[in-house]
């Protein structure tokens, strides 16, 4: 259990595939893990009123968001039998095609990892003090709205 330490969450810019690979590789020494579930959010090139999204620029109320994510982590560890759990979110500009959210859960049996991952993604998107600004190719913008 590593649920008691408040962990680094925010990463400047997009989350690289090599960062994700390292996170996966670190778990090969945890021999009680049987299943990992990973969610990756990727910035889409949406087209809104004829304007193409070029990037999303993320800002956070960082001290509050870190505490919120800490609470959500604790809740997930109480709710599901997890071995470990990692959450990373981008800050600043992430171009289309870049990864902006990385949620990674591990457990002995697959159900806990899978369900916890979905639970975390839903709560993070709804409850955490982060905002995305969709920057269009023509330099205009609009503030992103989550469903």
């Amino acid at each position, binding site marked *: 259990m590593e649920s008691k330490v408040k962990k680094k969450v925010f990463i400047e810019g997009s989350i690289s595939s090599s960062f994700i690979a390292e996170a996966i590789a670190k778990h090969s020494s945890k021999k009680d893990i049987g299943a990992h579930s990973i969610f990756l959010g990727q910035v889409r090139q949406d087209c809104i009123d004829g304007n193409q999204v070029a990037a999303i620029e993320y800002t956070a109320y960082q001290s509050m968001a870190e505490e919120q994510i800490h609470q959500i982590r604790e809740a997930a560890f109480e709710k599901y039998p997890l071995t470990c759990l990692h959450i990373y979110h981008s800050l600043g500009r992430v171009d289309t095609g870049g990864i902006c959210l990385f949620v990674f859960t591990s457990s002995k049996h697959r159900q806990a990892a899978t369900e916890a991952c979905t639970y975390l993604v839903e709560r993070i998107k709804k409850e955490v*003090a*982060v905002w995305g600004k969709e920057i269009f190719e023509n330099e205009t913008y609009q503030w992103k709205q989550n469903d």
Partner: protein
Amino acid sequence: MQITLLVFGVLNDILPPQTMVLPAGADTHQLQQLLNERYPDLEKYQYVLAKNQQLIHQHQPINEGDEIALLPPFSGG
């Protein structure tokens, strides 16, 4: 008394973050009224308040040095 006002998301288009001086004994309701007078467009937007990094669920007294944040709906991920 002096407080820090933080502004996030779309509300950055309406008002800047700022240090504000409020009358002693002011609460969050009075703060909102004051902001609505100075920035009439603010009333068009949905947002919640946080006091010292905690969401508040009903209006609360404000103290010297508090950090008040205006939070429009979150849109991370």
